[in-house]
């Protein structure tokens, strides 16, 4: 069927999402909770686009294309909602995300520097018990990518979402660390994490722009 992205007409298979259509048309849509390897989740609201005739902007990763749909990736309302969401997420972090992370990349796209809101911030919470993997809980933005990578790529089912609201975070096993969970140390969680909330010991050492107070080993 035919859809229109930013005025460009393209043909897509039924079942294609608005995000896939936008990418196929060569339009950039920022994402945070999205990973090609995982089923679309629609949690972060960063991939918002305008859809002609729709009452409000839609999350493009979970919106299926319909015949003759008109998608506007530069829709102002969509951009404003997405930018504000990223800014809110950033406002909870004790330090800006490392330069190479997807969150930093998305923040650059929305031109977010210092968040306007100065509410409560997470405190550094480092778990270094695993020989390779490190958790920096304060950087978790609850996008669910690690949990889904663990379930949908590896099938270890070792990670779980915990807490609500500001307390929302992730945990391995029954809060017992990777080693005492069903974790098989495949590292898919660290690989997909957009903030380095899960990363590797060696990468923390390499990181040029360390998080926290530069206390990383």
């Amino acid at each position, binding site marked *: 069927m035919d859809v229109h992205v930013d005025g460009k007409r393209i043909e897509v298979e039924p079942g294609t999402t608005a995000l896939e259509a936008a990418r196929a048309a060569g339009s950039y849509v920022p994402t945070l909770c999205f990973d090609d390897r995982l089923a679309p989740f629609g949690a972060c609201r960063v991939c918002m686009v305008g859809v002609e005739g729709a009452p409000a902007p839609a999350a493009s990763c979970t919106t299926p294309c319909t015949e003759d749909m008109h998608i506007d990736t530069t829709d102002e309302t969509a951009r404003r909602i997405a930018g504000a969401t990223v800014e809110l997420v950033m406002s909870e972090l004790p330090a800006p995300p490392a330069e190479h992370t997807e969150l930093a990349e998305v923040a650059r796209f929305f031109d977010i520097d210092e968040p306007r809101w100065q509410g409560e911030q997470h405190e550094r919470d480092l778990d270094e018990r695993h020989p*390779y993997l490190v958790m920096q809980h304060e950087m978790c933005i609850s996008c669910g990518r690690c949990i889904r990578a663990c379930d949908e*790529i590896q099938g270890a089912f070792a990670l779980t979402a915990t807490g609500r609201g500001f307390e929302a975070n992730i945990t391995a096993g029954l809060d017992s660390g990777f080693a005492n969970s069903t974790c098989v*140390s495949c590292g898919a969680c660290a*690989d997909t994490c957009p903030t380095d909330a899960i990363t590797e010991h060696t990468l923390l050492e*390499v990181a040029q722009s360390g998080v926290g107070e530069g206390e990383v080993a």
Partner: protein
Amino acid sequence: MSDRFEKTTSTTCGYCGVGCRLEAHRADGHVVSISPAMDGPANKGHTCLKGRFAHQFARSRDRLTAPLVRESGSFRLATWDEALARIADGLGGIKAGHGPDAIAGLASSRATNEDCYLMQRMMRAAIGTHNIDNCSRVCHSPTSFALRKSFGLSGATGSFDDIEAAEVALLIGVNPTQGHPVVGARIKQAALDGLKLITADPRRIELADYGEIHLANRPGTNAALANGLAHVLIRDGLVDEAFIESRTEGFDSVAELVGAYTPEAVEEITGVPAADVERAAHIFGEADRACILWGLGVTEHRYGSEVVRLLCNMALMTGNVGRPGAALLPLRGQNNVQGSSDMGALPDTFTDYRPVTDDEITSSFERRWGVEMKREIGMKIPEMFDAAVEGKLKAMYIFGEDVAQTDPNTEHVIEALESLEFLVCQDIFETETTKYADVILPASSFLEKTGTFTNAERRVQLVEAAADPPGSALTDFEILRRVSSALGHEMDYETPSDVMDEIAEMTPRYAGLSHERMGRHGQQWPVTADGADSPILYTESFELPGGKARFAPLPYTPPGDEADEEFPLILVTGRRLEHYNAGTMTRRTANLDLMPSDWLEIHPDDATSLGLTDDEVVKVRSRRGQIELPVKVTSRIEPGHVFTAFHFPEVRTNLLVGDSADVNTSCPEYKVVAVSVERTGAARPVGERVDAGREQVPA
């Protein structure tokens, strides 16, 4: 994303035969992190804890960084010139005095195709012998043998993508979530998505929990199980008569043979309930698309090659070959098990399994290399050790293999190594084997070299250097060139890519292989001259005379070892997720923190009758030797059986394994060893770190 790193190199994993494509990130001159390539055909953006994390071994302080030569009983550092002169003298003298067949070489299934090709050329052209073999002898040689007999070519009939395309997969003698983790993850995801699994293994493997049915047949009874399944398939009309008629030969003799393998008779032999044999056969036979996957639990048996042929029978009678979702997929153990044999590092064949006894083939290589070669086949690995002990074999050149650790009947292997007059080892570490060397050459790891590996789906993939070899260590390509030159035979290649060009030129089925063409996705052989490759084999015809596949009527015969009063339990050996083969690499990484030591798995019933609880150290005795290690009680193993891995040299599991081997290929029977288990009174928690050392005294 790559700002953090000096350089990111796309390469292919050097661990198991899955062939994950990796991105190796370098900072400060060495590899600091590895991530999966998103477009890797086998791994699709995933990798396991070995491929991703276990790379510190390459920076280990134990790395060999200069040649070592033996002098009055110990090793001293030497220059390359000295080491090469010593090799030229040693091998040259033995060749002059005893003839070239007094020398034998081993290539490595961890090395690249180009390295293996150079190694076999050096043995054949510089030394003048066909005494060249590789470690696939001890793992998948039965697979290669059987696939060639049944279908024509030595490799998987399809690709890993066939797993997701299948309705049913039969997994026999393979534990992918431990041994081949990325394919294991793919199978698990496919099962969660509706793929029906039939698992057959003496242990209840993890994937059994995601399957339709698990068949816990006794070790060594795979043939009876396969014939029993065939019996039900034929009896209940679940066969594809059109396929049998048009594409195969010899079905009637199989139908006749399996008549006796009623589910009840099979239950008697295998211990699998008759009803389960019936149900498994129906799940398999009623599917439109079924795959069969197997591993060393099929091959490392006295009749391993015959069982592979029986699996081929099942695929043939149900028409499950040569279509998407209908593939036979042997899971290869090492990164280049497929390639080392494809390259002709075998005593009887040149590249693509073309026999040295074929005058035309041998002549073509004679012309290419400017030498004369024999038309008689050389020695296989076990024959080399026997000949060394008898005094007929005087020298060996062992490249990237630790035979004193990984081959069966360890005492015999060591006696063979001690009997040699001259031994050259080319490796990245000192090993159990290098203790007997006269010259040790410092080689390169997969992160430091260029070439190709061929994965378990026949996919030839690029390996590119992400770091430099340490010290004065060299790439294996460079070492083999220099050694060959010192032996008087120049191998004029500028780069490994030139070697691949020669392989393609000399081998019709690899005609289109080239480093340039394979790019990021590799090429699955056969590859025609225009570069077209073959994800699925036998879509139209089989590669045997007449184009038809061959059924094999082969009966069940008991394994080479059996439990008796003195040795009442059957030991099965295998792999664990955290470690890789002899552990040379993984035990030099933090994977050792994840799994610090080995244990013996035993069923609660056997543990109770022996009065054993977790962590108690036991003495495991076989007809060959004894080892000591702590036990873990688990109902994942059947009563009457025990299990351990072979990753820890201090445990020396292979001391227990005898001489029993596959009847066709001499692949050792690692999977059936009668043992006794006795209390020692000592205890050591499973998972406690044990310092390496040959004389292991439990705490």
